[in-house]
């Protein structure tokens, strides 16, 4: 009886797995396929393009849309945000895990509240402040808010990673004659690297994907990141929606993220679920 049922269950689970993959990847696949269609064939609904065409990719890097500029802006904004957030976030994370001080809970609550605060409540007063500083349409107007919104994530992930570290080892190394600095460099830092790396991936993806702040602060190609640029793409005529070029741009923007996801899926999952579930 039980033996007869087993293969059916396995088939059911396998079918469930395929369904999950299809649900997640079908729209992404459609973006790739649409981007490879010739502009006149964009409304074809065949599973494969009838003629493979790189016309859409040529168009996004052509003079009309200058997507390369937006890519450069996104790279600068996301990498700077990540670097600053790591340095700033590692300090309180260390303090939360290793030090005893009053106001720890308050700090954590402040960090949690910031993480879920509605960006629209901040964006207008920030715009006015940045306008006074002459920052509009310049990188700092996006990097500074991105850092602030990425800090909670950074602190959260780093704290949960640091809490799991064998801190006694550093003490043991000091007993064996290491200076505190040496113990930190040779024991703690190598062990902490994976956690920092995980946090860095998550913050980079966050900053790369940010839209609201950038849509308000950036005005021209000088600072517009990819998320804003894609939405503002223009077609051949003012009445034509440029879906082919948008799909191509979407692929270009998403491929680095998909590569990150494939390479570091274990770390990303660990980072996403860190802290939220243990205890």
């Amino acid at each position, binding site marked *: 009886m039980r033996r007869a049922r087993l293969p059916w269950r396995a088939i059911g689970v396998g079918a469930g797995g395929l369904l999950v993959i299809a649900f997640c990847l079908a729209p992404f696949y459609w973006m790739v396929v649409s981007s490879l269609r010739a502009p006149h064939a964009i409304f074809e609904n065949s599973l494969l393009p009838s003629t493979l065409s790189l016309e859409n990719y040529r168009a996004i890097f052509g003079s009309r849309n200058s997507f390369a500029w937006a890519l450069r802006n996104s790279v600068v904004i996301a990498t700077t945000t990540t670097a600053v957030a790591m340095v700033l976030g590692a300090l309180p994370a260390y303090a939360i895990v290793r030090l005893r001080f009053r106001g720890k809970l308050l700090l954590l609550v402040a960090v949690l509240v910031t993480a*879920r605060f509605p960006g629209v409540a901040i964006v207008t007063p920030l715009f006015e402040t940045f306008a006074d500083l002459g920052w509009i349409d310049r990188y700092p107007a996006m990097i500074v808010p991105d*850092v602030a919104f990425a800090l909670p994530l950074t602190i959260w992930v780093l704290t949960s990673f640091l809490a799991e570290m064998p801190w006694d080892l550093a003490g043991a190394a000091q007993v064996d004659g290491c200076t505190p600095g040496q113990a930190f460099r040779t024991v703690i830092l190598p062990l902490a690297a994976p956690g920092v790396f995980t946090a860095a991936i998550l913050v980079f993806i966050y900053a790369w994907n940010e839209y609201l702040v950038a849509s308000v602060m950036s005005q021209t190609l000088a600072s517009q990141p990819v998320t804003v640029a894609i939405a503002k793409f223009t077609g051949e005529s003012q009445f034509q929606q440029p879906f082919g070029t948008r799909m191509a741009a979407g692929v270009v923007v998403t491929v680095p993220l998909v590569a990150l996801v494939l390479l570091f899926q274990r770390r990303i999952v660990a980072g996403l679920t860190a802290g939220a579930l243990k205890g």
Partner: protein
Amino acid sequence: MSSSRPRPAAERAARGGRRSDGPLALWLTLPTLVVLGLVVGYPVARACYRSLFDDPITVAPHFVGLANYAAALASVEFRAALVVTLFFTVVSVALEIVLGFAMALVMHREMRGRGWIRAAILVPWAIPTAVTAVLWSWMLQPAGIVNHLLGANILWTASAWPAKLAIVIADVWKTAPFVALLLLAGLELIPDELYEAAKLDGAGARQRFATITLPLVRRALLVAVLFRVLDVLRIYDLPALLTGGANDTTTLSLLVVRATIGNLQPGYGSALSTLTSVLILVVGIAFVRALGVDLMAAPAEEKG
């Protein structure tokens, strides 16, 4: 305060016997506090202050007390945005939890290709929301693939209910996988022995799900619901890019941006944004209160 609680002597010894590391802790947290204060605290205070003044075009703003709040609360647009936002919150989160739970249960099974499923599930999460919006607006075109597959002729973003549905679909596609990951992590914490014991005791699959899986995954479930509810309450990118707020899809966030930036009414807009923030704060606090304070447990206190 958690830090004032006495700790076991052994733990204190392990930490080098220091009583309090106040000064060092202050220096380590100061940069973060300054950044959060300047980028979040100051603008919030500025918006609260600005919300007490009117929006004349040529002269300097006058102090009007809570008039902007009264106007906002009485306005049709605020009520409509509130209803739409709550609609998205309830419908999207419910669908995401159900779908995410189903996906997590599938991924929890031993099978070949688990790594592939996990990689696939991260793709919607990793795609920028702006790209998600553009992608779904393409698929939901009148002559697009969704209508083609459905054999229907729906004008997705051009009429009220389909426009709402379009936003729900895009949001569920993007975040149900994230919910699945949170729930999967919760499922993996449940020891297999429990299921074995229940099986020996003759519990059926449905019984095991109801008496073991559901209660033990509760915390992960609550965290997922809380995160998603607070996220959808401030939803901006998807409606802004998919419908532009047309056809009764203007959420609170969209309304705030339209009032402050589009209509140049910083006073009225600031009142709207304060109301939105208060709503999110109240929902968050109510949620945590109603469903257990353990959600807020500090990570540093989470041992074992």
